[in-house]
């Protein structure tokens, strides 16, 4: 099949995706794949295609990020219900930008570290790559992820990606921030680092030095290749287990200080108002969470019988120690199997085989992390924070299976 027809096909599909409805997206992909399949059908005994310098996905496997119309101040979501394992392909990693994706020349890139240091220093990208390196697999999650579920009247026609798709997991490679702070000689009196990006918003957040010295990284690699432009190319701050906004992309500067800078993103935004008339600031760690990704809207179980309930669990405080599953709306809970590897501050796959008898069922998952924290239900979190709170929505997500096999988000009206 020629490239032109493929591009035309995918272009048509993209237009429908921009239309926004997941159902439309699925239909469009099915149509495109049917057409492509007819053109690429293999006949036994026929010689296959040649080697190529860059692989492509199979014509029938074309997952896409979930989003509305393209925008520079917006987000796109990982299609978590279409993914296997724990690693998110880099081109499907969720996006959240405040002023678009900058185009940065890697040969001109520099990171400046200054402030309360012995020696203010400038590092090129080659410099950063020359330092002792580290790699780790961990998640990045927007702290607004799950907002659609923090609502007693949440719409039922929501897919896992539409609720929890601001969440992705990668193998990140780079240099530990502690290595760089050692090189510049950070003062023992420095308690905060201002991290600043070079996007048009010059996005800036204050980061405790304690975290920087623990496991923070200046990442330049993602899943074996250079990080994607949308993820901060050529280098970003990575703060394992912490909210995505603080993990400043396109990072150009770290300033050591003894107080936070009180940027807009840590005052006006990304603070969590509480029911007691206060607002929680620097709420950076992501609490334990889990969600079932199958079966879930818009899937319809075609028949009763054996199915595997599958999902993802994670905690910003360490390892997931257990995930429990209920299929009867919480009357009984059973431990799910955790798929190795179970890593700290990382997505963990869980699964549970289930013999569906064809009657209505309410599926939920409940994660526990190594601190003993148990993922709360909606009413528990509302009682703790109030209905109007913002960010860090880690409530248990219910999925209702109808007797006809159709699955809906099971919390809102009509659930």
């Amino acid at each position: 099949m020629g490239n032109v027809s493929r591009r035309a096909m995918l272009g048509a599909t993209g237009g429908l995706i921009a239309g926004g409805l997941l159902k439309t997206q699925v239909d469009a992909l099915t149509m495109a794949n049917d057409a492509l399949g007819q053109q690429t059908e293999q006949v036994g005994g026929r010689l296959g295609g040649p080697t190529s310098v860059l692989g492509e996905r199979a014509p029938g496997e074309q997952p896409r990020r979930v989003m509305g119309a393209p925008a520079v101040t917006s987000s796109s979501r990982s299609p978590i219900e279409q993914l296997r394992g724990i690693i998110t392909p880099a081109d499907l990693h969720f996006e959240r930008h405040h002023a678009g994706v900058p185009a940065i020349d890697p040969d001109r890139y520099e990171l400046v570290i200054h402030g309360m240091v012995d020696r203010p220093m400038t590092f090129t990208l080659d410099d950063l790559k020359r330092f002792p390196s580290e790699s780790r697999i961990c998640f990045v999650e927007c702290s607004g992820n799950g907002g659609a579920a923090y609502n007693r009247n949440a719409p039922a026609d929501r897919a896992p990606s539409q609720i929890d798709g601001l969440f992705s997991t990668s193998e990140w490679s780079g240099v530990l921030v502690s290595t760089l702070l050692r090189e510049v000689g950070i003062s023992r009196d420095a308690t905060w680092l201002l991290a600043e990006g070079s996007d048009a918003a010059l996005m800036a957040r204050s980061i405790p030095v304690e975290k920087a010295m623990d496991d923070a990284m200046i990442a330049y690699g993602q899943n074996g290749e250079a990080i994607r432009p949308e993820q901060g190319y050529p280098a970003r701050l990575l703060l394992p287990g912490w909210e995505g906004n603080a993990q400043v992309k396109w990072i150009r500067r770290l300033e050591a200080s003894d107080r936070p800078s009180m940027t807009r993103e840590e005052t006006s935004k990304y603070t969590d108002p509480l029911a007691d008339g206060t607002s929680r600031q620097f709420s950076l760690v992501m609490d334990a969470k889990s969600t079932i990704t199958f079966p879930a809207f818009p899937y319809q179980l075609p028949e009763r019988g054996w199915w595997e309930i599958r999902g993802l669990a994670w905690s910003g405080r360490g390892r997931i120690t257990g995930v429990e599953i209920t299929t009867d709306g919480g009357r009984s809970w059973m431990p799910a199997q955790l798929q190795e590897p179970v890593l700290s501050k990382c997505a963990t796959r869980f699964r549970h085989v289930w013999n569906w008898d064809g009657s209505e069922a309410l599926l939920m998952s409940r994660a526990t992390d190594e601190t003993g924290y148990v993922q709360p239900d909606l009413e528990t979190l509302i009682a703790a924070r109030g209905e109007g709170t913002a960010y860090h929505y880690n409530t248990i997500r219910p999925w209702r299976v109808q007797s006809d096999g159709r699955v809906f988000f099971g919390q809102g009206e009509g659930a």
Partner: protein
Amino acid sequence: MRPLALGVAALGAFACAPDAPGRDGNTAMSSAAAANNVEWPRSFQIGRDATPAEVAALDIDFGPDGAGAPPGSGSVAEGKIVFDSKCAVCHGATGQEGPNDQLVGREPREGFPFGETRGLRRTVGNYWPYATTIFDYVNRTMPMTAPGSLTANEVYAVAAYILFLNEIVPEDAVMNAQTLVAVVMPARDRFVRDDRDGGRVVR
């Protein structure tokens, strides 16, 4: 923003050389030092000194203590001129109409019910704890299509005008490095540090 207080004179007075980085055991990798038994040098001699000029060009942040705030000033009246021509298209003629973030509004004046009540608008007047954040954010990010294009005087003026619209400063106010730091925002004492710490208690 900080002046370069720790210059040459401070070199050698205290050289912080932390131990191998703390790890939580996520990966199979430990620090490079432990992995190959080579003790790290005091310095890897990678990178170069940042010049005072390049640091000064980047060091634009303006925090609550006002350290390093740029010279300049702007009045409410001057701010209205800037706002009308460069801000109102996104934030509305009086900072309340959108389509982007609502900047102006003191309601609800009693209490701070943002956690309790769903759907309240968080504005500069009812939610922002520090007036310096207005300068810092406008200076680094606004206007959206031409960030960095405003002079320091214009940014001080816009801050003055937004504070005036929110009934926080009088109509004859002039904002500069000293007066902006001195503004006490209505929500100043509403913010608390994170008390979540894992474990059994849901906070």
